[in-house]
């Protein structure tokens, strides 16, 4: 999808991590897979869950909860893998995002997207494009490129909000 068309579309896929709801622009979403056996790659960062077979290619899968400083994903029947098309240094890369549940595709008009709060936010602002208020819920619209980038900086949480949990997210073996 080229940039022009992309900006016209207002559809977002919403998903849940625990109680919090997030959304990703559909332009970034390739498809949604049901939970399947993930082959763990040893000695990798904790948030890297492993790899799966996506039609003959190897797709890395990231535990989005861990990325967001939450406890690791516990598999339920709702757990899904969202296959994302991420831009890394101008290159298109596929990555799978493990989420607790996928909700719906929402039409969110640009006018209804509020800019992310600069302070007091749980998560670092460079990862959040904006916030939308749908049915009295606050849905955080994510910058998927930034969230799932290959940079080793994993801590999405704002440093001011650091808790003991972040030690889990620290990299192992560089």
């Amino acid at each position: 999808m080229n940039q022009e068309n992309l900006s016209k579309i207002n559809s977002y896929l919403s998903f849940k991590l625990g109680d919090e709801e997030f959304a990703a622009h559909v332009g970034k979403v390739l498809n949604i897979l049901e939970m399947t056996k993930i082959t763990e790659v040893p000695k990798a960062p904790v948030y890297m869950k492993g790899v799966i077979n996506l039609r003959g290619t190897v797709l890395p899968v990231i535990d989005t909860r861990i990325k967001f400083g939450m406890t690791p994903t516990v598999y339920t029947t709702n757990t899904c893998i969202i296959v994302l098309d991420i831009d890394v240094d101008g290159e298109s890369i596929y990555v799978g995002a493990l989420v607790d549940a996928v909700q719906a595709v929402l039409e969110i008009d640009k006018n209804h997207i509020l800019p992310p709060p600069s302070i007091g936010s749980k998560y670092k602002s460079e990862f959040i494009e904006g916030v939308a208020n749908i049915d009295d819920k606050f849905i955080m619209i994510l910058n998927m490129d930034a969230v799932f980038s290959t940079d080793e900086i994993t801590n999405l949480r704002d440093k001011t909000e650091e808790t003991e949990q972040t030690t889990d997210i620290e990299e192992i073996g560089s």
Partner: protein
Amino acid sequence: MDNFKKKFIEEATDLLEGLEKSLLALEENPEDLSLIQQVFRVMHTLKGNSGMFGFEMIDSFTHEMETVYDLIRNGKLKATREILDVTLAAVDHLKLLLNEDNYNDPEVIGNHKELLSKVALLVKGDSASEQNAHADLNVEVNKSVEEKGEKTYYIFFEPINEIFDNGTNPLYLLDELHDLGKVEVFAHLNKVPSLNVLNPEFCYTYWEVIIATSASLNDISDVFIFVEDDSTIEIQEIADYNLLTDEIFIDDLKKLASTQNDIGLSSVQNLTKEANSRKVKDKIKSFNKDRSTSKETSISSIRVSADKLDILMNLVSELVTTQARLSLFAEENNIPGLLPIAENVQKLSRQLRDTAFSIVLIPIENMLTRFQRLVRDLSNELGKEVVFVTEGAETELDKTIIESLADPLMHILRNSLDHGIEDSDVRVKKGKPKQGRISLKAYYSGANVMIQISDDGAGIDPVMITEKAIAKGIISPDRKLTKREVLELVFLPGFSTARQVTDLSGRGVGMDVVKRKISDIRGEVEIESEFGHGTTITIKLPLTLSIIDGLLVKVEDTHFIIPLLVVDKIYAIDHEKIKKTFNNVVVLDGKQIPFFYIREEFDLNESQEKFEQVIVVNFEEKRVGLIVDHVIGEYQAVLKPLGKHYKNQDMISGATILGDGTVALVVDTNKIIKLFSKHEVFKIKEEEKPEK
């Protein structure tokens, strides 16, 4: 033979005299059947025997006479005056024919022809006269045209039960087949009834035989000539070469014979087809081998766009994956006939893979021109005299690897020219030849290509490096480093030790970049240097990027692939034994082998299995064991990258999709062992002899 001839002539003369008497008597009594029989018998005997002793003309002549008198004795012809006249004339003629000197006498020859035509006329009256082919002269031993080559035939031979009654022994016929060529005999006893109903005078056995012989089909049929009316015989050519040199063909036949009653012509033909394709493949292999060993840069070549090559490679990779699934399916579902087809597909796709990859392999020759230019131009610019020697220009590499190699190699060469080779006067002072020497050597080592760049220049000063490293804060001042470790420092970022950062090599391109670029193409680089004498940089590269022959193993739920090339041996081992070892060393085949317990290293639970497998791999010059749960088998893995998210993960070279769709991880054993040994306190020792 002369004695026999004489004997025959004597005999014949007697016979002819007796004949004359009979004929004269017959004239008086033309209806006397016994006289007619006598005449007939004489003609018959003369005809039968004359050919034996070389009297062909008598043979053919008496043949005609015999026909006449056969007709007479059967009442089809009457012994007329005319016939008797001719017959008596024939007797005179025959007497003459008994003397070989007369054979060249034109009168005799003329007479012969005349009489023959007269006799023929006599016979013509009866349309039912036998038209017997004068097979006399060609009753030769070998009617068959000499077959230059061998052919293979299938023979089915089932004699009737009563075959023994007329003195036949079928085994003699099989012996005769053995005389003709190479034979595989399959005797079938399934028609032998139980003892209480078995007739000991009956033959119940029947045979199927495969014979490879240069004898003709006729010759083979002739073996059975006495029994053909009393047997079922089938002879069928199945190949125009000797199939019995193909061991697999013979084994397959034996397998079939043991599992079924008859092998059957169609099964044999199927096996023949398989043997044929093996033969063709062997021809192709040897043909290809010949082609590839020739060193000429092929004049007969075509240009292929890189895009097409990429598409081809992708398709080949996918084929390999799909074929793996086919093999798995065939094994699991056990559909008869599918497994051999799947095996065939595997062989074919392997060949296709190898051939496809060879297309993508290009000799590094082309790249070398660039380097020669560089050396020439640079040495001129720097005012240094350098000779550049290349070896192994014909060594071939995947084109993508070559492209990625160009820059790093250029950089290394620049370094050599710039910092390595000294000015001529400096060299002379050092006692070195005025001309500096840089060599680039390329060669194969196992599944790798090695590229070695050496110079006889100044070499690397370990002291200077260490100082620089301390200055940069990379190492602490009191750290003791081995020479190797010092040299490795060169690969650290920002580490240019040139006193002046020259325009050429200091331009933000350091050895760290070289190392990284080479890692990107899954290669390794090492430096060797002798301060004052020179430096050698060795680059190790994989031959192909995409497909690896590996060993598929399982550790708990995960499948791993260990490249076959590093695998030395596999042993089964007791779980208890592993737990009990001291210092993580196990004794295998009398040698002490250090091992790593993969489960432990990857933080998995302890195995509940009683037995595990130790895979002994080659690591540098030593052997190290890696313990896994199960070894599943050989697997041809289409290597797929893990992706940028795993870019710091170098233990796993990549992943592959197994036949059942799950992902297996391809391990780099060198990296794993290096990593594991960091955690363990001990270093890997040389293998020691067990203490007694």
